[in-house]
């Protein structure tokens, strides 16, 4: 059984005793599991097997663990069938699958997660629904038996007709990801494109502000393309979260492209962070892990929803506690937020006049200020380019060129410190990313002039480190600090 990304094995015991006809299920089973009695009974009968006509007890151990989900159908049915045949399953085997009334085995969510967990726990063999076998087969060193029906499983176990082991049809090698949106298509917007490059290289979060139609969404969609393809371990983590949600494409469970999630601003806290009854389901931030979380119209999101983002932004993971227990999901995403400068959207636009009162603009921007903005390293203004000018604006560099620079900069960081610059804690920052005296003076001068917080100081420092890495420079030069400060829009001159 799955508790978030954790796997808890459940031992199913069946005993056929004497006494009146009954089917007793013990071991803290919730409603979905209790209902399985009816499915199991029908499936066994419709598989041409014999259902006990005396007292039947099935126990799910450990008894204190709440059992939920339909994945226990198959193990319960197998336990009964084997008890009837007075046999035992081969040691080191695990079963997972939902039963249809006719005895066929149906898909369950999270097979990849279960297979990984079972393998770690030392199981050698898993029996999974035939359609999910591709997921489980991604785990190397695990024997995966695809189960089309209960009859086939029992046939396999009694040696009547063995089922062939499933093999992975996906080559577990990194493949170049296809690029959906190429930076080449973005005319002008040099500042924003540079900000994207820095964000990609250092794992920094980015806020774009500008009028509607400026191309904020287009720019954000270009980000996954300039990130390097997922590493194997990252692709596994992404696939596991998707597996839990039953969202893995059957044909190619491993996807090397970085996730890009853009939830609508009406999203609830549970939808964004994760939640739900019993055991919390992963939310959008976990689905965006190792990729991009794009929040368009940032100011329109409910304040508590944005507040809830703060902890995952800092730690790269999220822990959610619900009645069924506490689970931890990955949440190491790059946040790209977009906002209009004011309620009508046209403040600062060179083409159309803004109709908002200063107080309205102020309160709109105030909605964004504070702790959340303090955690966004890069802020950039996106401008609308008049349609007739669009064609004359220079085209961008192709995504592949930018990605090559990003990959090189990331490698420098990983070789030096084992993580991206955005994840450097201040002590390590001081130790690993020394500022040249001149650079430090510039940063301190700005800090004093603009009343920057200590957090802001370190953020600018990290961005400067990334700018230096993009330059292939081991020292942080003044130029890098200045560029980093150029991406801080919210430092008001004192």
């Amino acid at each position, binding site marked *: 059984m799955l508790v978030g990304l954790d796997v808890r094995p459940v031992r199913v015991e069946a005993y056929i005793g004497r006494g009146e006809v009954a089917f007793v299920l013990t071991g803290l089973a919730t409603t979905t599991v209790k209902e399985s009695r009816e499915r199991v009974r029908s499936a066994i009968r419709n598989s041409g097997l014999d259902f006990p006509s005396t007292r039947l007890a099935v126990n799910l151990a450990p008894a204190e663990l709440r059992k939920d989900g339909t994945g226990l159908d198959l193990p319960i049915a197998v336990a009964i069938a084997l008890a009837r045949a007075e046999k035992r399953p081969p040691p080191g085997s695990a079963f997972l699958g939902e039963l249809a009334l006719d005895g066929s085995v149906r898909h369950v969510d999270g097979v990849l997660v279960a297979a990984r967990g079972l393998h770690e726990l030392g199981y050698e063999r898993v029996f999974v629904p035939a359609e999910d076998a591709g997921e489980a087969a991604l785990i190397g060193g695990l024997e995966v038996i695809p189960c089309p029906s209960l009859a086939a499983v029992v046939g396999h176990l009694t040696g009547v007709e063995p089922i062939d082991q499933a093999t992975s049809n996906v080559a577990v090698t990194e493949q170049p990801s296809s690029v959906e949106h190429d930076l080449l298509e973005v005319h002008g917007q040099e500042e924003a494109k540079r900000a994207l490059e820095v964000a990609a290289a250092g794992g920094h979060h980015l806020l774009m502000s500008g009028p509607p139609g400026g191309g904020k969404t287009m720019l954000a969609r270009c980000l996954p393309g300039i990130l390097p393809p997922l590493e194997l371990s990252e692709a596994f983590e992404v696939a596991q979260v998707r597996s839990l949600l039953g969202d893995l494409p059957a044909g190619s469970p491993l996807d090397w492209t970085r996730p890009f999630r853009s939830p609508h601003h009406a999203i609830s806290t549970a939808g964004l962070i994760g939640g739900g009854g019993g055991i919390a389901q992963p939310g959008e931030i976990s689905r965006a892990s190792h990729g991009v979380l794009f929040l368009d119209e940032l100011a329109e999101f409910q304040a508590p929803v944005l507040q809830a983002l703060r902890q995952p932004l800092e730690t790269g993971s999220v822990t959610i506690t619900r009645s069924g227990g506490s689970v931890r999901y990955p949440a190491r995403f790059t946040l790209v937020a977009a906002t209009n400068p004011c309620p009508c959207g046209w403040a600062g636009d060179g083409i159309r006049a803004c109709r908002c009162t200063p107080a309205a603009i102020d309160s709109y921007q105030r909605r964004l200020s504070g702790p959340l903005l303090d955690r966004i390293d890069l802020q950039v*203004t996106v401008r609308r380019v008049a349609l007739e000018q669009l064609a004359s604006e220079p085209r961008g560099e192709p995504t592949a060129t930018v990605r090559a620079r990003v990959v090189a900069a990331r490698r420098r960081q990983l070789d030096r410190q084992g993580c991206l610059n955005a994840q450097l804690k201040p002590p390590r920052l001081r130790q690993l990313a020394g500022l040249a005296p001149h650079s430090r003076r510039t940063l301190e001068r700005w800090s004093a002039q603009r009343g920057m917080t200590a957090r802001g100081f370190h953020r600018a420092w990290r961005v400067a480190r990334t700018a230096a890495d993009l330059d292939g420079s081991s020292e942080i030069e003044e*130029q890098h600090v*200045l560029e980093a400060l*150029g991406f801080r*829009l919210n430092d008001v001159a004192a």
Partner: protein
Amino acid sequence: MAEQLALELARAGVVVVSGLALGIDAAAHRGALNAGGVTVAVMGTGVDVIYPTAHTVLAEAILAGGGALVSQFPDGTAPRRHNFPARNYTMAALSDVVLVVEAAEGSGALITAEAALDLHKEVMAVPGSIFSPLSVGTHALLRDGAGLVQNARDVLSVLSQGGEVLDDPLATPAGLGFKLPPERDGILFHLSDVLAVNASELARKLQLPISDVLGRLTALELDGVVKRHQEGYVRALRRGKERA
């Protein structure tokens, strides 16, 4: 621009009347105060109600500078939309010359200008970029015969105080007291002091990588030579006296 004009006019002894509102109003008051001049705020609220509240400090500075807060509304009048056009009329009535620095279509400044015409006062306007929505109103005024203002002297000559100008505002400002490092003036050349230019555009004009341009702009900003706005960068006229 408003701040600069107000500063030079106040230095020449002109009393600057404005409305204590955000933006141009505040800039005008500050400019006059920076020159040690007298400035009058005509309020759309009761004199005891500072609106916007953020201008409490500014209002105190106006009083401390020997100026006045005046209002035609009884004490305690809260800000009401319909009171402000009436306040604009009073502003025009108190002034000899009405100077419009920026006005979008339908701006309150145009109400003041209209009132000035009714009262047979002189109306003057500062032109702007033809691309700026904030200059549509001033350009309409100029087309309709308002006096053109490029500097403080233009205003002073209308006030027939031209002869009394001690500080020639047309002279190169002596306060431009900084030397530009040679590699940075290329950027300054492409910047204007009224129309904001964004970094992407500069990078294209200068044929420099954007990271370079951003860095240089920030350096100039740090030196107080340029200012960053929502729309882009502008040249700051003088340094050291940005905002109170």
